[in-house]
């Protein structure tokens, strides 16, 4: 079976040296692969390259067998809903001047050519699934907590039924108990929709709780480990 996403010999440099080099891995449908590394190891840049927000210096990314960088603008637009990204700072991912109901309905309204108000009623089951109330969506982002905005962000992303989600430290700015709620929710939605996930984090315990395999970005090296191997590696890191 063809993997959903294949990364082949990816490298990225900004002219003053490599950020990462020779990164290769595959992700199957429904699978979660972790990207682990310290600050500055290039894990967020790698995530952005996978989804096409940044250009690679070398290597290629295949999504369902098609090379992403060689797709036409039209084909890429068709593909966009299938690949989504969840960012670290939920409060910066929403337009501060838009009510949440407009923000969360915007992607589906755009891709399906419908009115935002029509789309919002279709999102009600998803809103209930993430544990928010529809009335909270008449607020602006600054009126809600970080955990609530990250949930709203999940409504926005899952409304497109993506096949792949790149989650860039989605809970690193949240409290422990809210982190457990959000990650639990991600797992449930992922299982229900058979969504694949590239999960970026610097917390080894979160990695072990979320991921089937973990890619470790070291200094210009990249190695994919299974959960057991990573547990041993993480134990060496701990105090």
């Amino acid at each position, binding site marked *: 079976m063809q993997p959903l996403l294949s990364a082949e010999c990816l490298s990225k440099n900004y002219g003053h040296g490599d950020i990462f080099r020779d990164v290769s891995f595959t992700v199957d449908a429904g699978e979660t692969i972790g990207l682990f590394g310290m600050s500055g190891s290039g894990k967020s840049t790698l995530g952005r390259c996978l989804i096409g927000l940044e250009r690679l210096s070398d290597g290629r990314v295949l999504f369902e067998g098609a090379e992403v960088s060689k797709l036409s603008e039209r084909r890429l637009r068709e593909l966009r809903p299938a690949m989504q990204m969840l960012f670290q700072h939920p409060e910066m991912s929403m337009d501060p001047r838009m009510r949440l109901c407009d923000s969360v309905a915007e992607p589906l309204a755009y891709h399906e050519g419908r009115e935002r108000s029509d789309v919002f009623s279709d999102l009600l089951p998803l809103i209930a699934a993430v544990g928010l109330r529809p009335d909270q969506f008449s607020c602006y982002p600054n009126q809600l*907590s970080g955990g609530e905005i990250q949930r709203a962000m999940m409504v926005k992303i899952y409304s497109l039924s993506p096949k792949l989600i790149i989650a860039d430290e989605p809970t690193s700015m949240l409290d*422990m108990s809210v982190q*457990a709620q959000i990650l*639990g929710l991600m797992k449930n939605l992922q299982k229900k929709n058979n969504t694949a996930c590239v999960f970026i984090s610097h917390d080894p315990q*979160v990695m072990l709780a979320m991921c089937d395999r973990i890619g470790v970005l070291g200094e210009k090296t990249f190695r994919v480990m299974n959960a057991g191997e990573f547990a041993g590696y993480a134990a060496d890191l701990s*105090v």
Partner: protein
Amino acid sequence: MNILEVSELNVAFPTRRGLVRASQNVNFSVKEGEICVLIGETGSGKSVIGQAVLHLLPQNARVSGSVRYAGEEILLISEQKFSRLRGHEISLIPQNPTGSLDPLMRCGQQVAEVLDVCGVPKEEHSSRTTSILSALSFSDPELVAASYPHELSGGMRQRLTTGIALAASPRLLVADEPTKGLDYAARKRTIEMFLNLKRRGTDSVLMITHDLELAEMIADQAGVLYSGELVEFGPAADVFSSPLHPYTKGLMAALPKNGMTPMPGMCPGLAQLPDGCYFHDRCPTPCEENHVHPLMHEVCGRQVRCSRC
């Protein structure tokens, strides 16, 4: 001897939505040479307690209660009197090291500034700065002293602010979220640094954090805050190994290493607190009658705010 005694501390802020009661009837004490950690989530009022101790609350804060430092009342004393304590006897490791350092001053000068205020002769500044920095496990303290803050990593800046706080050899250190925003390696070094302080046994620390693992590793006493109130306070080893309050139990179960079991619901807003138990709606074993607000009482050598315990 208690270096810090906080009793019946109340801090509230008048807002358009009503009175936000950020801290309510908080009682605890820190013994000399002990690390006391206050754990709480965003909005639980933990930073407000640190700010009240350091007289750093905004002007519109309504404060009552008592804070005694080495037996002397300090909560409502004049700013002039308190400035003799702040930085000399009581120091702060601020929450945001990047925003707390002067970007235009070399790191060494920022440590020496404190030494200057403390009356250390100028010729000793350089050697004292180097010894403070090397005690914080900087491998090349001279290089760090000659650098600007932007040349250091997040973890190094965190250690530098700790160095500045320790420069005057304070008797009490208030550390506000010392591991927030740090990656795994930087967090590990910060934890090691606090473990070293603990081994020295001379520093009294009041630490405010939501990093439960950090708290578990370094605390002697631990207090858990929920919606502005302490719900559990006692010896850290007991609080973490056998939590009594259902909120503390929920927090421990939410840790990734304990299976990441989420607690249902959210904290109530501090402007619309219910009359009875604040945790009632989220509690797995709620009381049938919830008219009376539970008080702190002693159970197994610690204080717990739950009528079921």
